[in-house]
């Protein structure tokens, strides 16, 4: 079974440029997460999708960040324009979410390391 796929693995851009990250979750997983991980810290949730619906985007800086999950499968996270402080690792995860008290194991992709110069 294939794991969570992300691309690109690395991206270097200059500030004010746009950038996009792509994620393909594990087949059959209805829930997709985008996390931000700064150096030396744990991942922090940016946005969570259940199927096509963004059910939690409270931590997403909406002035420059946007995300979409077409047809409830693949997802794209975009930053426009990028700032120096956006340099971090962007992680995608997926799970089969069946309710708050149900089994809900998350699986992570390899991440995209973004460097903004």
């Amino acid at each position: 079974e294939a794991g969570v796929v992300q691309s690109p693995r690395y991206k270097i851009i200059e500030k004010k440029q746009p950038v996009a990250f792509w994620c393909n979750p594990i087949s059959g997983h209805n829930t997709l997460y985008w996390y931000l991980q700064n150096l030396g810290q744990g991942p922090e949730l940016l946005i969570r999708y259940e199927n096509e619906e963004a059910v939690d985007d409270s931590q997403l800086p909406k002035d420059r960040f946007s995300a979409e999950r077409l047809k409830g499968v693949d997802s794209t996270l975009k930053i426009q324009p990028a700032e120096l402080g956006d340099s971090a690792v962007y992680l995608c995860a997926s799970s089969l979410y069946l309710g708050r008290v149900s089994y809900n194991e998350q699986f992570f992709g390899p991440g995209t390391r973004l460097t903004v110069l």
Partner: protein
Amino acid sequence: GIQVEQSPPDLILQEGANSTLRCNFSDSVNNLQWFHQNPWGQLINLFYIPSGTKQNGRLSATTVATERYSLLYISSSQTTDSGVYFCAVPFTSGTYKYIFGTGTRLKVLA
């Protein structure tokens, strides 16, 4: 919101040594995950353990949900065990999302 703290923050071991990593959380939870983030940044699932004890090779984990902590045991450590270990618990007030602990950075010396 729920607070998740891990200890120790850093750990250096000689190959072959045993260690115990701890995860404390401030509220009751109905599941918990342990991850190993390798030096290349990949988060690897170790255990999904809402309660009780599980073992997988040299690693085992115990969660005592009523006392709000979980332990990860590494026996006969190897250099490939190096990396950062995270625990994560769900925050279910309002929405449902995982909150990650502060991590334990482990370095195993040959």
